[in-house]
């Protein structure tokens, strides 16, 4: 019997050290070895707990909500897109608490062209991407988790009755990598 596999996910188990900065370089090319075109695409690196709930999401996106209470419609759309993609709750992002000075983003939301710590958490180069999480944000206790790396694009609002936007979805999503994510005890 013929079999067709459209799952291109590479299984890679990652280990790192608790409390240290995390840095991972991943080469990305097309099948023929040519540079992959990241134009208009978003890379998402998510770490999940045992219940498969994301506890950390990193991205090369410029639209992740910032920590300085400034939200705009684009970043709200981005947050809604993540909620749909990861099938999780808006509470995890807290992105609606714009006027609450005590708000935090439990899931980090790492931005952005130099605006947060001067770091982009995922940097894209021609044939590679770098995932860089400074230790001050990498506050995951030691233990075994899981992770995946997704490539998404074409984020669109979903209109519900009365043209109210209640969710946003990525039209395209591909999982590139996944596996165990082990945080060694410091």
């Amino acid at each position, binding site marked *: 019997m013929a079999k067709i596999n459209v799952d291109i996910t590479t299984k890679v188990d990652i280990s790192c050290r608790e409390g*240290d900065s995390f840095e991972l370089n991943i080469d990305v090319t097309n099948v023929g070895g040519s540079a992959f075109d990241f134009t208009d695409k978003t890379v998402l690196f998510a770490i999940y707990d045992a219940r498969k709930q994301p506890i950390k999401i990193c991205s090369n996106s410029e639209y992740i909500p910032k920590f300085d209470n400034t939200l705009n419609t684009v970043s709200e759309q981005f947050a809604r897109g993540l909620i749909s993609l990861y099938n999780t709750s808006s509470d995890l992002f807290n992105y609606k608490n714009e006027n609450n000075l005590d708000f*935090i983003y439990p899931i980090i939301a790492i931005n952005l062209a130099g605006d947060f*710590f001067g770091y982009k958490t995922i940097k894209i180069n021609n044939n590679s991407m770098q995932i860089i999480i*400074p*230790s001050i944000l990498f506050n995951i206790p030691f233990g075994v988790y899981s992770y995946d790396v997704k490539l998404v694009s074409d984020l669109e609002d979903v209109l519900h009755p009365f043209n109210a936007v209640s969710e946003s979805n990525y039209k395209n999503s591909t999982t590139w990598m996944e596996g165990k994510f082990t945080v060694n005890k410091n």
Partner: protein
Amino acid sequence: MAIKITTDKSKKVDITAKRLDDFIVNLEIKNESGNLVEFTRDAYTYLNKGTISRPNKKNSLGNEDVMLFTITTEDDTPVLAACSSDLDLAMCVNYGEPIDAVESFDPTKHFDGNDSNGGNYDYPTNQRDFDKLYDEFHVIKIKAIANSMSKASHKNTAEEQSNYGIKNLIFTKLYISSSPEAIAQTQATTTYNSPFIYKHSDYRDWLYNIFTNTDVVKNSFMNSELSSNPNFTGYTGNRYIFFGRVEGNNSFQIKFDHDKFNLPAGNYKYTFKSLSNMAILAVDTNNNVITANNYTIKHTKPYEESYIDQTTWIHGKLKINE
């Protein structure tokens, strides 16, 4: 079968030492290619009795890689530490200098080993004076290192964490040198800067907690003169957990003098880390955020000073023989 990769750079090296002997360990850190890792260090010679040498710039905030060697008990309580940065000793940099003269500080003037002008830190009376003279950079740096230590301590309760500087401590307003909290103390026509900690018990407690590993010292300090006598003259030596020092720049030499290497014989753990890219957050008198060194921690509350990056290079067991 999944491919396995690790970003954990730490090598495991177990150390055995003898109690109350000089503890001297040389460590060299190489990358995957076998080349020495480069660190940004501030040239610094530790303050020693009779041999005084230190750079003009007391605290190289921001770009300096702080090397931290921490000994912990089996349950991850830090009990002894060595640091490459001039933590407590840095406190003396303002000694005898007016606020606006910090930048022109003459390193030879007050570190010449002469008891009479405060140049000898080993002299208890001078320690008393030095310890009153924190400025904002001392506090920022010490708190940043304390915060880094607290995150690695695996302590969960507020009480446990309080020793390492993260319990209800908002220092931000204290960093403003022109703050009305700065008090003027006239001595030989010199205005002293920023004895905030000396004046405010919460901050004072915090600072002494992070450097104190004996309750006896702390309690005697608190119960004797501090609360009532602004010219407290208590003996302040031998109270810090930062008894040791890290010298050199890859290779590094970790040193504890024999009289400071006084932990009970037994089994401990240690880590050797670099702390990089200190973030500073301060607010001006209108609560506007001001920054230094291009690094700012932007989460809204609580404000915090810490190092953005940390790498553990070496860790292992430390067995101390009787």
